[in-house]
């Protein structure tokens, strides 16, 4: 599987840069997940990994295999699309669940239910 020697040096450099960028961002996101205190802060950290983290690695993959096979290899675009479509949904569900829980438990610092309002009416917090 290892054809790295076939790769021209400049391409190898670009690919390596993108890989380091992507994995570095993902690592940062992971560290953030551990370091942040509240759930709402934590929600933000992994997005580094799902946006530019995954993106940079995918671009690296496109470049690397396009050069190796001398034709455009664009499968990774599909992965990008699916990651972009599904990740926000997941995070949104998580955030809403957390918000709901905090509200019912009356955790300080979280906007309360409106008196006659609806549970979960606070669209702004999680709208997209």
């Amino acid at each position: 599987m290892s054809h790295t020697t076939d790769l021209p040096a400049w391409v190898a450099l670009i690919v390596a840069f993108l890989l380091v960028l992507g994995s570095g961002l993902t690592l940062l996101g992971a560290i953030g997940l551990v370091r942040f205190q509240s759930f709402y802060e934590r929600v933000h950290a992994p997005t580094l990994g799902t946006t530019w983290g995954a993106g940079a690695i995918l671009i690296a993959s496109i470049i690397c295999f396009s050069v190796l096979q001398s034709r455009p290899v664009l499968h990774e675009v599909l992965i990008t699309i699916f990651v972009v479509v599904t990740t926000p949904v997941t995070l949104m569900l998580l955030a809403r669940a957390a918000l709901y829980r905090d509200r019912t438990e009356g955790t300080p610092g979280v906007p309360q239910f409106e008196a006659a309002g609806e549970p979960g009416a606070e669209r702004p917090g999680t709208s997209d």
Partner: protein
Amino acid sequence: MIWMIVLPFVGSAIAALLPTNARNAEAWLAGVVTLVTLILASASYPAVAAGDAIRSNIEWIPSLGLNLSLRMDGFAWLFATMISGIGFLVVLYARYYMSPEDPVPRFFSFFLAFMGAMLGVVLSGNLILLVVFWELTSVFSFLLIGYWHHNANARDGARMALTITGIGGLGLLAGVLLIGHIVGSYDLDRVLASGDLIRSHDLYVPAIVLILLGTLTKSAQFPFHFWLPNAMAAPTPVSAYLHSATMVKAGVFLMARLWPVLSGSTEWFWILGFCGMMSLALGAYFAIFQQDIKGLLAYSTISHLGLITLLLSLGSPLGAVAAIFHMVNHATFKASLFMAAGIIDHECGTRDIRRLSGLFRFMPITATLAMVASAAMAGVPLLNGFLSKEMFFAEAIETHAISVLDTAAPYVAVLASAFAVTYSIRFIHGVFFGPLPTDVPSVAPHEPPFLMRFPILLLVVACLLVGTIPALTIGPFLHTAVTSVLGARTPEYSLAIWHGFNLPLLMSIVALIAGVILYLLLKDYLSRCEEGPPFFRRLKGQRIFERFMVTVSWRWARFVDYRLGARRLQPQLRLLVTVAFVAALWPLYSRGFTPGRFTLTGADPVFAGVWVLGIVCALGAAYQAKFHRLAALILLSGAGLVTCITFVWLSAPDLAVTQLLVEIVTTVLILLGLRWLPKRVQDGPTIASAVPGARLRRFRDLAIAVSVGVGVTLIAYAVMTRTPPPTIADYFLEKAYSEGGGRNVVNVILVDFRAFDTFGEITVLAIVALTVFALLRRFRPAPDSVDSPEQQRIQTAFDEAQPDRETGETIIDYLMIPAVIMQWLFPVIIMFAAYLFFRGHDLPGGGFAAGIAMAAAFILQYMAAGTRWVEDRLRVLPVRWIGLGLLLAAFTGAGSWLFGYPFLTSHSRYVDLPLIGDMPLASAIFFDLGVFSLVVGATVLMLIALAHQSIRRHRVARTIAAADEETA
């Protein structure tokens, strides 16, 4: 000859399809079928009489020595004629007997099928085939006896008959297998030719015990006799047929058939002699005290069959002649008597002898016929019963083997004959003579239509003719039959009525006089006494049988269930794991166990790191499993992902794809199921300290778990540190493309080389899915998880409180955007599944992975929009998917038969499809499609079972709420 067997079954199938009210058409059909069979039988007589058996052979499974071979010699001919002839008469009789309200097609359908099975028994030229037909007679007799299934007696009688004869049939099969083992062939001709070999073999005794178990149960011989009287709940035509000419005769038929091979030993004599004598005497004794006419006839049948059995036990050729002769005689007079009993029942509405009397005045012809028939039963001179009874007496006097049994034979014979005279007189005198009946349901009994009487007339005439001029009527036929059974050992016998004044005649006279005297003595007692004979009234075979059945099927079952089963999962798992541990330990201990040397060279640090992660995940899952199920589940899927990465790492992308999809689907399904598990018991530690054994038990479980885990690790380690021998894998790698037409070796193995295994596996999968469904259908969750989840309750309450909102609106709001995305993804995932499916034969993918992906699409829909919404719009019928998948796989496999290849041979070629391009198209792809369909069905079935849980809970909760409102 094959038509004689096929025709009744065809007739049966046609009869089953006729409308319920087609009474006459049914009777015509059955009549024609039986008549044609009779004609076929008669037409083959000249060939049979010429001395040689007619044979016809159709290859079935020649490699196992199983052929559809039929063989008709004189004895089989005699029986075939009797079966079809009496069958015809019974059909005629049944036409008038059966009430228009009864479902007549069912009757004739079963009747014809039974006749076919019976003809199969007598015409089989192969012992295995004979056993098959034998079992068929048991099954159809069960259906016939239980014909009036609304009647509890009929059901019980039928079940008892089936149980007893079924056990016997099993014994017979085992015995026949033994015989086949001894002789080396199941062919009747060869078996009959190797009598000496069988008798001198070590397995002779087990073989005859097993075979006699079959024949004695079938012929209702002591101690298995009790099913016969209970089978009297059947319609009378059934009794007339089954208990005169067919069912019970099958037993004695087989004994006579194998008589030349098996008889002559002490064991044979003792078993048969004892059973026969007991049946003969006890049957006759019991018959005297029956109040039901049919009961009387049933016990009389037992007694007469006992006589035949006793004759066969003697091992003398003359005894066999008498036995065969008596089989025919008994069939004629007993069939006519049963029919007469049926007429009486039909006309008067009761069969109780105490209530019936003086019927001679209403039905003189029937009465006369019945009188002649019962005289034959009693053995009165000038009737056929007399002749065979004389032969029996003559044989009883002869000394065959010096023993108590042999000495007792003449006395028992005279006693039983006297009893026979008594019950015959009782039947006739009690029913037809005396004062006019006062206690009869029907007001004006009268003669039945001529055609209903006609069968009796014919049979009684036969009795008379055989009784007066035997040599001219039955003589030649009997001779053919006897010769075919006995061959060179055929003795000189004379069928004359008058043999001079000798001992047998004296015995007959004594029996007749004693019987009359006995009747005169017992007459008053009999008209008053309760059902059942004195001394034995409390000892009912039926009661014993039922108690036995209860013991076996209820007490023992419960005992085993109590001892080996467990209501809780933990003991079951403990048992399972311990047994597995011992089972693995034992061969390792006895064969020795040497693990290879441990080396660290060549270990990739990254790969090792991945594995460390996986190990941590697995351990964490185990640690959290008790109190944090969600965390445990997530950790578990982490371990699963590590497995996936391992597969990729070790270049098994196919497995990785499948593993990933399975991982996703199982995680989601378990997540959905988590909600139904009971909540954590908060005061856990106190329980542990309160129950003394609890801590100990936990340590024991820990020890079991650790030792099993270490054991599996060691085995895996030992396997992996060994250099593998050349395996079959190389063969598959080599042949996958050239013979299976696919480059994805795993897939080719699954759908081609090992397709039969796959077929079995998907069948198991289907069964598992159905089981899960069945279990969840009856699932009652723990009390604390019955209610809807808290959040759901609050939301619903909120929705109900707001006038402008409908129930469930909040959750829809909540899930709006995810739901849209999930619904958009539906076609995408289906596309993905199709992609996986079509590339499967050459690249990672295949039916299984595609099926899982497809199921994931459905799961997503259920999660996004809720069960009701999805099922309003999308009808998934998982059971049909499962069925379709199985059928498709089976048909694809069977398709290769059309081209003359073995099951599941696949054919492959490349097809050029527009747009998609060159596409490998093996016939295996249809098999794969079956796998796909089945996997989708199975997974979705489980999903639906889980999803409907929540709906059902709603419903239950609502009804409770409604009930509360009503009471309030």
